[in-house]
């Protein structure tokens, strides 16, 4: 994917790191080191997404976000904060942020979230359909049935939701944290490899005995459901 991203971050090295990573992924990156410049850029030009630090000199991230939304700018915003807990997350999301990422984070996590936002902005993929497809894998959200080829797969309720989420984001990288948030509604890291084990169970159900595996592990990032 490509696109134009605005990074508003006063920590120069962190901004470098994010900017460099995004550039490597073929994104065009604009940067602002304080809230005022960030707001000026965000309201003046078209961006695919804004990565906005919460604590900024001059005008803080929350104020920038509110001013952007007040000015009618609907660009998706990911808020970054050292205060990554639930309280601040909810506060950020109510103020109009589309996603919230606690520092420290891995670049893979940020990238996955930026891409998810871009897709959501582009029409949400299969989000509205009642039957989701990925290659010969089929998930019916109404009858709650899952089939691979002609084979019917029985699913526990949580496995169903896990697969549903992966299929809604087919082709995208979905991180462990994103899965925990979307499928379990937990905003903490339960540690060890709790999610990995759920994924390997799911993988056994849908990929075992198939010529083409669909559920891929993306090293250092998360998982991706795709036909390649």
């Amino acid at each position, binding site marked *: 994917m490509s696109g134009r991203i605005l990074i508003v971050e006063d920590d120069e090295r*962190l901004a470098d*790191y994010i900017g460099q990573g995004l550039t490597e992924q073929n994104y065009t990156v604009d940067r602002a080191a304080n809230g005022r410049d960030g707001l000026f850029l965000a309201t003046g030009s078209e961006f695919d997404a804004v990565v906005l630090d919460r604590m900024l000199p001059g005008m803080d991230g929350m104020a920038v976000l509110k001013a952007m939304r007040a000015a009618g700018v609907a660009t998706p915003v990911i808020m970054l904060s050292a205060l990554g*807990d639930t309280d601040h997350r909810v506060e950020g999301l109510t103020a109009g942020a589309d996603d919230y990422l606690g520092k420290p984070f891995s670049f893979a996590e940020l990238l996955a979230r930026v891409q998810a936002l871009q897709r959501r902005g582009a029409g949400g993929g299969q989000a509205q359909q009642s039957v989701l497809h990925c290659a010969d894998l089929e998930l019916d959200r109404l009858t709650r049935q899952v089939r691979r080829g002609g084979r019917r797969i029985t699913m526990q309720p949580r496995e169903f939701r896990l697969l549903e989420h992966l299929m809604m984001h087919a082709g995208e990288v979905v991180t462990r944290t994103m899965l925990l948030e979307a499928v379990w509604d937990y905003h903490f890291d339960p540690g*060890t490899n709790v999610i990995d084990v759920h994924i390997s169970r799911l993988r056994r159900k849908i990929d075992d005995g198939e010529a083409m595996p669909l559920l891929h592990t993306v090293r*250092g990032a998360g998982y991706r459901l795709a036909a390649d």
Partner: protein
Amino acid sequence: MFRRLWSSTVARIVAAIFAVQILSGAATMLLLHSQMLQVIASDRGRQINDLRDDLLAAFYEGGHDGLVRYLGDAHGSVSDPLIFVAVTGKDAPALVHLAAVPEGVTTDRPHAVKVLQVAGGEPVDATAVRADLPDGTRLTVGALNAPDRQFSIAFAEAITLTVVLTALLALGGALMIGLVISRRTHAIAATAEALGSGNFAARIGNAERGDGFDHLRRQMNFMAERIDRLVGELQTVAGTLAHDLRSPVARLKAAIETAQHAAPEGPAAEALALARTDAEALEDMLGAALELVRLESGMVADRRQMLDLADIAADLAELYEPLAEQSGTALSCQTVPVRVLADRELLSRALANLIDNSLKYGGDAITVAVRRERDHAVLEVADNGAGIAEADRDRAVGRFIRLDNARTQPGAGLGLAMVAAVAALHGGTVELAEASGGESAGRGSGRSGLIVRMRLPLD
């Protein structure tokens, strides 16, 4: 009930005040009684002496006949039926209000004697004095003590009334004092409770009285002020730490990732992988420590809602079940629906910590239980692992404490401290106990494991 009431300090103070008031009232009355009796006795003595003097005067004026005439005319107090006079010696005795001449009456001053007023009657108490006349006549003058008894009866009635009134007033007064003490101490305790549960803005209301309570109130408020300021500083420090420490760690990790990208293979890549593991551990510890500071100081928004602990337990068990199965551990739930006012996220995080701990150190069976015990809800995680020695249990809940057998496992040593902080935020407690083999630990392997029990208040 009575014993419990008696163990209350206020009840004892009330009882003491009551007893002191009753005793002092009774003592006053008794003193008054004896004083009055003395006054009456000395009055009677004077009356008897006066009469004797009058009779002596009659004798010196008119001789023995004059004396008898005086008595016959019933002058002055001679007519008083309580007064008696006996003239004996010469001729026939003259008796006024008497049946027999009393024995043992002396001449110096009035004495207590028994007299017979009516022949064949009962002798009654009286006071009498004697005078020996020059012609050999013996004059005895006295008065009955009857008024004393009447007075005593009247006084006893007065005392009874006084005691009843005093008792009522004393009880009322004592109860009022008790109520005042109780109310003032409760006001102080309520504020202390609010402070204890994290409301550092709580203060005891103003009441300038300059007494011990006021002193206590001022000191409590002073203490609260100090706590408030320290927590405020802590909050600032926590925020600063978060920003100042987490950012460099994030950059460190970012730099390692960049380097890993540049050197995907070889010895450098191995070293970088190790560095990354450490950086991530540092990041986790820092995050956990900051989180703990936040929780312990009550710096969290109130996001509590009525929820069922059984649901929380079931969700977490479901999350961990595949991991438990993979490590050969049986993870089961024994729950009943118990609704409490709680923060789902925080409680889930605490429970995740406990399950994670049990998976790391806890043998092959873990039971998550939810039940109701009298006035609180119990949420516990029991395992059949090595457990924690009783001596170490209190320490285990402390910060950065990693017991010896845990050194080899990764972790920040903040898990149980975090659980305790979450419980405290909900007004609850955490205790560690020994799981006796088989009872809670499920499979009954014979080993005793660890139970971590959170108690949360029911509403």
